[in-house]
């Protein structure tokens, strides 16, 4: 077992894990952060996307030990204490999601993308979200929500 110390949502967290434990499983099982969802477990569906050192990554394709010393943001850390971020509010207002399984992955991917590209247009948003799979919505409502968030971010 390896000692693992990393920053998650602004707080220092420690645990221990076998080297083969993925970051996704470490977040869920060892840190009880079950907001990160695990879908395909081989990098195809995007449900497990989290932000590591400012970049969206698949937490199922990264070992927990590889995140030692990193700053990780999960869906639990996106909004202000118990509330929702501007992005989450906009997705809520746009009825972006249905069943919720893919939601945290989409939200984290969109959050990382809007951070880096605040003026993104619809085409760029579609491209950025193309690695996340949703089986409910047909995607348009998600794109609408992210566009609304970008607009609100620019106004505030």
């Amino acid at each position, binding site marked *: 077992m390896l000692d693992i110390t990393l920053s998650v949502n602004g707080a220092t967290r420690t645990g221990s894990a076998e080297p*083969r434990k993925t970051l996704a*499983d470490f977040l869920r099982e060892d840190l009880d952060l079950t907001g990160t969802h695990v879908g395909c477990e081989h990098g195809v569906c995007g449900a497990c996307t989290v932000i590591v050192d400012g970049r969206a990554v698949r937490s199922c394709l990264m070992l927990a030990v590889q995140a030692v010393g990193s700053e990780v943001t999960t869906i639990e850390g996106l909004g202000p204490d118990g509330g929702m971020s501007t992005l989450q509010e906009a997705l809520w207002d746009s009825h972006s999601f249905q069943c919720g399984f893919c939601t945290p992955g989409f939200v984290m991917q969109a959050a990382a993308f809007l951070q880096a590209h605040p003026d993104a247009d619809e085409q760029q948003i579609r491209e950025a979200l193309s690695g996340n799979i949703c089986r409910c919505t047909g995607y348009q409502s998600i794109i609408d929500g992210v566009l609304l968030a970008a607009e609100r971010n620019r106004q505030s």
Partner: protein
Amino acid sequence: MFRWRGQDSHNLDGPRHPAAVTVVAAAMVARAAGQPGPATEECTPEGPRMKLPYVEYEAPSTVAEALELLAEHQDEASVLAGGQSLIPLLALRLARPALLIDINGLRELSEVSAANGSVSVGAMTREYVAEDSETIADTVPLLAAALPLIGHEAIRSRGTIGGSMAHADPAAELPAVARALDAEFVVSSKSGDRVIPAAEWFEGYLTTSRRADELLVEVRFPAARRGTGVSFQEVARRHGDFAIVGLAASLTLSDGVISDARLAFAGLSDVPVRGAEAEQLLVGERPSADLFDEVARQATADLDPPADLHGSSDYRKKVAATLVRRGLQAAADNADERQ
């Protein structure tokens, strides 16, 4: 949620990857014949069930340490770079290394530099870093054109140039770019360095000429000459998927005449395939739609691509011809812009 399943019922959930089906089928046939087949499942009974198989782990902090580990463990070890291909292989139990040598701590392998008409890209250069690199955009435009087509944004956050080249998936973008440009692969081992040309690097499906004690440390690309136009074309089932067929194309124009032409296909064989015949037809000619039509026909006439559930051999051949036409036209158009 994690239920221990005995050796013989391991595939109750069914494999979800075409390659996994092959391995599981081979294991079942071998077992029926009373022989040990390829291992499909193994879990340390005392430990918790996990997605990835049991594996030892080392994270060297220098190249010298990594080479020491490779020399000791040889093909029992797998080198973990960005992990965007190796970790899925572990998750699907298609790769079963005894040891992972994690080279993410080798900062010395992340440099991009251009000198004397050659661009050196460190093996651990992440794909998103290469995508944002002005050096690469200016000097290796074909590489720059291919990078945004690799997987998705989150994959490129971790994936590396060296990792993709060493994984050597014949349908991937970067091997085709390397083959088209005659890139060189620099490998290190305890006994010294070797420089391997792209024509000799790709040996077969997921197989390179890297020896088990060697580490890929750098990929060298020739800098594009003035008047060079490029295009990376691909047809995939969905955006970000591996290409059914992909094409890396580069044309250099001098006074309106093609002085250098380079074509390499992805997805048509177990290695990236160079379109040498097409290149010969192009050099010395002036770019035109008629020329590109003719080259597309001749370049693909002798191809015999594999068939799978994504497309028949004949379909792939037709797609290849279309991509040659489109790729050459796009390359000729942006060669004009660069003159």
